[in-house]
């Protein structure tokens, strides 16, 4: 198709204009974290690292990071086991309800977080209230694991489909049993897909706030919850900017890493 020079320039301007519009707010937050003023003022009158130095003084940030890491590790561990199991079952066996199952895996991430959140909240209350038990950390882990399964599943399934079964068959022909084949052949081949899926699951869990809000017990506060609870407090604005900037940097790196490692052409679990 012949696209005129003017149309090309117009398209290029629109594309790069929109891309800068995508990055602009992130740059504003990063710049604001070096804004020495306590109250919000734009543009910053000068730049300083004073609030970065006070990060650890502020109460609540470090425990919240700790909680987020615990939840992330727990949810990732469960998601790795369940997601891998489904990926193996779907790629290697045929069974009744296979297409339903592959749809069901996507459900928790396709439905709005608030739906998953209140569904789990209602169920937890229905079963825990009679036992006089409350929501706690483990309920958040259960909620997160539910929507993290899909990212592990996608990564492992893509890998298994690419690998085929000939290597495993060769291993069994040479006399290895099922466990040996898994340990020496299959596992090393899917390991990097597991790492990639695990990293994405952890990132997804670390960022999540909606399901968290509805499944967290009193006293459980993850980092996104800490940000949400503090961003309306004018006093805390500088520290929130610092935490937000830290998250922008911390997030982009592992995701970039996992994309490079998986190399299966998937856009990660978010699509």
């Amino acid at each position: 198709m012949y696209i005129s020079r003017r149309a090309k320039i117009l398209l290029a301007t629109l594309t790069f204009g929109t891309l800068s519009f995508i990055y602009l707010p992130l740059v504003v937050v990063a710049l604001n974290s070096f804004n020495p003023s306590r109250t919000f003022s734009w543009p910053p009158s000068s730049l300083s690292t004073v609030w970065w130095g006070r990060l650890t003084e502020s109460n609540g940030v470090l425990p919240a990071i700790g909680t987020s890491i615990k939840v992330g590790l727990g949810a990732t561990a469960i998601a790795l086991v369940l997601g891998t199991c489904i990926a193996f079952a779907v790629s290697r066996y045929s069974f009744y309800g296979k297409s339903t199952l592959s749809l069901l895996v996507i459900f928790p991430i396709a439905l709005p977080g608030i739906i998953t959140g209140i569904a789990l909240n209602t169920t937890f209350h229905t079963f825990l209230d009679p036992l006089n038990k409350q929501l706690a950390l483990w309920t958040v882990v259960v909620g997160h694991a539910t929507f993290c399964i899909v990212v592990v599943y996608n990564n492992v399934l893509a890998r298994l489909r690419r690998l085929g079964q000939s290597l495993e068959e060769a291993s069994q022909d040479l006399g290895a049993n099922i466990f040996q084949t898994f340990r020496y052949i299959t596992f090393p081949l899917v390991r990097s897909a597991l790492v990639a899926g695990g990293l994405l699951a952890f990132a997804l869990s670390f960022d999540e706030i909606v399901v968290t809000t509805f499944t967290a017990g009193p006293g459980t506060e993850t980092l996104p919850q800490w940000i949400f609870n503090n961003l309306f407090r004018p006093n805390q604005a500088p520290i929130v900017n610092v935490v937000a900037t830290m998250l922008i940097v911390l997030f982009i790196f592992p995701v970039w890493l996992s994309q490079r490692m998986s190399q299966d052409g998937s856009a990660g679990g978010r699509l």
Partner: protein
Amino acid sequence: MHKNRVNTWLYRHKGARAGLLLALPVLWLAIAYLGSLAVMLVSSLWSVDSFTGNTVHSLSFTNFHTLITQRVYSTIAIRSIGVAVAVTLIDGLLAIPIALFIAKVLKPRFRSVVIALVLVPLWASYLVKTYAWRSMFADGGVISWVLKPFGINGPGFGLAATTITLAYLWLPYMILPIYAGMDRLPNSLLEASSDLGASATKTFTSIILPIIYPAIIAGSIFTFSLSLGDYIVVKIVGGTTQLVANVIADNVGTAGNLPFAAAMALLPIGTILGYLFVVRRSGALENF
């Protein structure tokens, strides 16, 4: 010896291997997760005793009666669907030219770089991106600072800020499927069209648009349902704006009326399922 027997048995029983692999995931997803959704559906028929605050587990249509008869809820519902439609239109109008540029104008070696530029912010924290727009829209924030010399006031927090922030958050979800659709579109078709005398505009409306239509619908499923289910954005930049999702959230939190929240949650679920039902013939769902 014992281990060998397990091995042989597993080797011979394919069904058992599949069963072992599926037992835990099915227990988790089909029973715990789907079960929870079912409990939520049933709980929309429960009510809360206004005196004791306890949940009354008897079935009635009180919640739905309130939702239908009180005008405020239909206003909120229409407003929420309006926001979701507006976000979808904005994202569609921005994403189509961008995808066209990346897939058909840009040289192949730059393509992956620009796609990476679109993808990376998708993984920056959702909450941080929303918070970033708070600094943009705030009183004395970036937008009012830019507009001030022109004597215009920024929109501040409200419905406009909510719509813009949502459109910002979900834009990559619209660009990626449309780009994938454009990328699959053979150049020979476009060349044939111009060889036969069609202008660029005619080629776009008669060739490109009908072919990428399923991809646009696929993107719109994301932007529409993500917007309809979001309550964090409206809390952060929406000021006093009420949308379905934050009414649901408030009924779980402060008001403590879970059954009413569950009844209200049927609106986004129903709208999203209805939308999927309407678009299922377009072939968009095969894109996933």
